[in-house]
């Protein structure tokens, strides 16, 4: 039997991390969590997570930044909003998971070649340049960056999409791309200034 330490030490805390997450719009109510575990019981993905949603809530509040941001839990959240609807304290757990994903991407702390944050970044880059997303092109870019083997294992999907006339190779794009870029730049300036 392998014995591992489960106790946490004061030295692992990053003071102020919990407060920073709670300052993100939508995440303010985390403090009122009663650790009932309804979120973990509702979550269709908690059985695959390193930390259950309830544990994530506790660790964020107690400033255990690294443990939370490095866990697979925040990336497995598929945004089904089951926990958010069920939480008796009306904590928007899904939105807290989003805040944690944003933080992990910003700090660059996710496993190398882990496809979920790569998908989020590639998606965002495509929207910024084209205004729209072309799914087949997005998936190909994801596979190139994350896992070349995945291209081979998905050949059936590729052929099926060609057969059903859904394999799009031409970028969908909006007309006024400059307008979109101006908007996002102006909004980002506002954020940095505040």
């Amino acid at each position, binding site marked *: 039997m392998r014995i591992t330490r489960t106790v946490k030490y004061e030295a692992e805390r990053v003071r102020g991390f919990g407060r920073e997450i709670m300052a993100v719009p939508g995440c303010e109510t985390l403090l009122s969590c009663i650790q009932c575990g309804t979120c973990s019981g509702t979550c269709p993905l908690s059985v695959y997570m390193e930390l259950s949603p309830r544990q994530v809530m506790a660790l964020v509040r107690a400033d255990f930044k690294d443990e939370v941001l490095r866990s697979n839990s925040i990336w497995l959240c598929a*945004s089904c909003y089951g926990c958010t609807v069920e939480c008796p304290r009306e904590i928007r757990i899904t939105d807290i998971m989003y805040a944690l994903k944003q933080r992990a991407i910003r700090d660059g702390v996710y496993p190398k070649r882990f496809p979920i*944050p790569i998908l989020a970044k590639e998606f965002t880059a495509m929207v910024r340049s084209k205004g729209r997303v072309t799914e087949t092109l997005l998936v190909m870019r994801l596979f190139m960056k994350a896992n070349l083997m995945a291209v081979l294992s998905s050949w059936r999907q590729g052929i099926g999409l060609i057969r059903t006339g859904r394999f799009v190779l031409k970028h969908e794009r909006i007309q006024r791309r400059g307008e979109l870029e101006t908007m996002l730049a*102006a909004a980002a300036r506002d954020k940095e200034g505040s």
Partner: protein
Amino acid sequence: MKYSYFPGCSLKGLGRAYEESLLPVMRHLGAEMNELDDWNCCGATAYMSVDEQLACVLAARNLALAEKAGARDLITPCSACYLVLNKTKHYIEDSPAIRAAVERGLGAAGLKCEGTTSVRHPLDVLVNDIGLDVIKEKVVRPLKGLKVAPYYGCQVVRPYATFDDAWNPTTMDRLLTTLGAEVVHYPLKTKCCGASLTGTLPEIGLRLTYILLKEAVRRGADVIATICPLCQFNLDAYHHQIEQRWGPVRIPTVYFTQLMGIAFGLPAKQLALGRSFIPFRMPSAKAGEAVAPRT
């Protein structure tokens, strides 16, 4: 009736059968659908994972364009678009920081968003605006004997369950019954399909999809009806991988609008049924019965 229409990226790509069946069905019911000019991607869950404020600015451009066009209702068929546009409206109202970012961003493009346009799902519009009695009048080929598992997925009903229950919605059930179909009891109707995890982490994502397919088969359904392009793709496109892992659970998945089109007697070509991996055909004996009603 006139509606503004926000297709979203999926309905122009992998989910084009949804648009291809939705538009003729709406036309058949006398509802006018005007595609929003120069709409952009809603941002989906991915942009929200990178930057929340910019994700709201991105989504708000669509709301602003709809308002500028004088739209009272914006019909949004994709679950992710429906959620993100509604969420953005809530955030603009609730969070001063996000409202400021949105105002700054839109202002730079001479746009503004006052929240006057309602973001609505076609299921809501069909049942609550147009009405089941009007729909019933248009049914010329009742889906008699067809057993359908109604699958709603997550993001239309949660967290903003505006027109139905968050866990046990019944709007599509009632619609399918009106079309003459037999709706099977399907308790997983709002359980997650795995979303993009089917592509990013198939070991986990495909298991979620498998659970949904297996339950539909176990309940004796002939077909799964869905209201979301990503759910349709997941339930339809991965049968080979799923069968290799857990055995066969073969059942087709179609958009509810395709079933409406069949019941309305619209030509099959117009309903994009050929766009699915697992083909769906009305069981001919059953359809025959329906075409020649017994007296």
